[in-house]
């Protein structure tokens, strides 16, 4: 018994030493990096079914949301999730740090998005101001990154969700990021919102990895004072000033 106790204490002491000293200190190479890189959406790589909406969502409401989003684009607003995950103007960048995963798009209409690996719970909604990207926490399930997001704004950014429907402050998004192969990333998104969706709305988008030598070009600007751009965007909605 004494011998057993001694060996367990020895083993425990070794564990303690490993924990408390630099012997356990790792370099960044030990972090999961398989999702890191620049990803773009090739044509035809999306699979988006039509969303099943609750009966109370009228066509008038959907038209109102479409107008809202057109206005957000016209005035160079931050567009937020889901737009930044589905846009094709610039690659989606994913960078996995020690305690968060950054999901970034190099355009003026995209705020940086962070999914926190070190938060077990979302920031208290009483503290968090709803935003275009919401508040995301994440964890690993094997090699898949599972991201849960709440805290969306119901009036800022582009609200439309692929397949139909729109985000509100009650929306919840669950995303599963995993590699199909080294060059193909799958993001399966599931939206739930009792005021919008009759049942959870799920779709998948597949991205292709850009080569390691990829050099991001300069930031895409957006100038709300650009008259030519404004007239072009307003034409669909009834001409000059229609999106004011």
């Amino acid at each position, binding site marked *: 018994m004494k011998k057993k*106790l001694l060996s*367990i*204490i020895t083993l*425990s*002491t070794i*564990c*303690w030493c490993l*924990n*408390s000293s*630099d012997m*356990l*200190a*790792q*370099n*960044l*190479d*030990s*972090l999961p*990096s398989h999702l*890191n890189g620049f990803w773009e959406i090739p044509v035809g790589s999306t699979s988006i079914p039509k969303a099943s909406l609750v009966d109370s969502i009228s066509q008038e409401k959907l038209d109102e949301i479409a107008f809202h989003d057109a206005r957000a684009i016209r*005035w*160079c*607003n*931050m567009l937020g999730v889901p737009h930044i995950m589905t846009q094709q103007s610039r690659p989606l*960048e994913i*960078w*996995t*740090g*020690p*305690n*968060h995963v*950054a999901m*970034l798009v*190099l355009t*003026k*209409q*995209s*705020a*940086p998005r*962070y999914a*926190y690996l*070190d*938060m077990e719970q979302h*920031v208290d909604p009483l503290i968090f*101001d709803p*935003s*275009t*990207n919401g508040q995301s926490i994440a964890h690993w399930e094997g090699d898949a990154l599972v991201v849960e997001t709440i805290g969306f704004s119901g009036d*800022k950014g582009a609200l439309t969700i692929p397949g139909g429907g729109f985000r509100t402050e009650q929306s919840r998004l669950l995303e599963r990021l995993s590699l199909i192969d080294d060059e193909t990333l799958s993001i399966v998104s599931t939206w739930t919102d009792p005021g919008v969706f009759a049942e959870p709305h799920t779709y998948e988008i597949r991205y292709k990895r850009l080569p*390691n*030598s990829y*050099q*991001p070009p*300069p*930031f895409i600007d957006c*100038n*709300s*004072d650009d008259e030519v751009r404004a007239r072009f965007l307003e034409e669909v909605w009834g001409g000059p000033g229609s*999106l*004011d």
Partner: protein
Amino acid sequence: MKIIKQVILISFAMPGFSGFAFSQNIPDLTDGFVRVDIAGSGGFDGLTSYIEPAQLTPKAQEIVANLPGRQLGFDYLRQNEKPKQEGEVYVVTSGACNYRSATLIQPDSSAFFLTQTPEMVTFTREEAGIRHIFMDGRQHPSPGNWTPNGTGHSIGWYEEGELIVETIGLTPGGVTAGGYRTPETVLVERFSLSEDGEMLTINYTWTDPEIYLQPHNYDIYYERLPADFGYAYEIWCDAGDPNSGTSIFIPEQL
């Protein structure tokens, strides 16, 4: 037996067992930092008052003296503090939301966030824009293959516990404490942490024989955001909001 269980539990509960720990050579720059006004100026124009002015070549002195911002100075911002007569014109913004990618090089008073990965360090703020610092050993592109921009082209490496970043290819413009830069100017930044990891110093060295008589070198200080509030906010600006075009200094009407 109870003792054995306790010893095992204590051992496995020690910090760092399941989490990530940085090795000594790599500073933990993860998460947010915000600039500290060590000069105690309380104002935008005093933040850098402790920095030695740049020693410029005669040619660069002329360029800097004619920079639009230099001519207007901070009086531009304060013009609306003065009472206005009826019909007197004063400048307001167009309401456009202008995010300045240049502040990813020399951050202003809003927080910035770093994400460290083996191949990349990204530097972001609470608004649009990304600064990429390539850690994969690549070289700078040749000038013919690069369009100068507000963040330039940055490569980085770790050296004795510091992150070293070398940048070229910036657009021409002003630099802290009377400096200037062109796409050929080389900026080297050294990111170093205080012993407790709570304070970050970025040492900036601007080198360009066409502009500087000697390298323009200074430190700017930052503190880590508190752990409880270490998440990023999101700046909101709507150019379509009629209030966005009004001045932040509403002048008194006489």
